[in-house]
């Protein structure tokens, strides 16, 4: 769509969008960063790619040979 518009139309579209975005509510990074960090750290312990997947619980484990029990 941007291809069919004249330079002026594109500029006007950009301007309208910028006018909207100038008013975006912004929360302090000192508030949002700790929340991201808390979320990640809270779940990291249970993250299979970090914790590792035990052989017997791994649905993707390679098919082994015979197992003698």
């Amino acid at each position: 769509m941007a291809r069919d518009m004249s330079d002026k139309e594109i500029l006007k579209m950009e301007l309208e969008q910028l006018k909207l975005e100038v008013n975006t509510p912004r929360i302090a990074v000192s508030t949002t960063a700790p929340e991201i960090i808390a979320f990640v750290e809270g779940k990291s312990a249970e993250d299979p790619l970090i914790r590792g997947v035990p052989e017997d619980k791994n649905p993707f484990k390679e098919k082994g040979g015979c197992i003698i029990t």
Partner: protein
Amino acid sequence: MGEMEQLRKEAESLKDEITAARKAVQDLTLQDHVAGTAVVGRVQLKTRKTLRGHLSKIYAVHWGDSKLCVSASQDGKLIVWDSYTTNKVHAIPLKSSWVMTCAYAPSGNMVACGGLDNMCSIYNLKGKDGNVKVMRELAAHTGYLSCCRFLNDNEIITSSGDCTCVLWDIETGSQKTVFAGHLGDCMSLGVAPDFNTFISGACDFTAKLWDIRDGQCRQTFGGHESDINAIGFFPNGNAVITGSDDASCKLYDLRSDQELITYQDSGIMCGVTSLAPSLSGRLILAGYDDFNCNIWDSLKAERVGVLSGHDNRVSCIGVTPDGMACCTGSWDSFLKIWN
């Protein structure tokens, strides 16, 4: 000519205002908050399965659940795989082999794909006679289909080389909403965990957050120095990760409306093709043009692992919904499952 100058000046002034407003809330950085956090230990994942069957470059892969995934190759096939057994559940021949994207519906009932045919084709996997057939061809884009993602069995969002994204009604085949605003080809999209918004990355070097229901672009994020090829939501829904031809990935925070971290290394000089966060978001797995996939500690911005094993570009990557494994797809025609 006078009017253009005036419009440009107004735009520049608004951009400056936005930059200042972003700076004003940057009372601390993410780095400040994690200064005392240890880097996550070295992550060494092994290839557990190799999915063989495609005869040409793989362009896309998408998990349906934690076992089934769909892949698209320019050999003209969509293959649905049981990743536990490596069996091919469906091998769907496509009308057009120039496929660039594929998607699995959350319900597991349908898959979709599209590419240089400018269309998004929807396939019903659960047809009565067991045959997989085209259910709908969504045509209206005037450029290639770069990405598609189902919201549900009746709605899908597409991104296109025509610079727009579209929300479709699958039943009627009509465009419900057109999301216009990007000034370059839209390359990738991601849907928020709550399905209220989606994000798009484009060749105008920006990422945009859109409200699905009212069609508005809510936020625009710049900073990349080249095309954004890959984009995804952080698992908490409040941040966005992007991957670009400028060889870096970035984390943008939606609530402070700014970039928080860049993931880059002077030793990496090739473009990012694909990315996916791990379940917790602590790891970001990113595929690159140099045939590797780098694993980043998302908080410390350090590389903590590499997945090497493909003999050509890693074009796509996805982590299972349960976080148990990731799948990489490559131009070498293979998919690999790692954990």
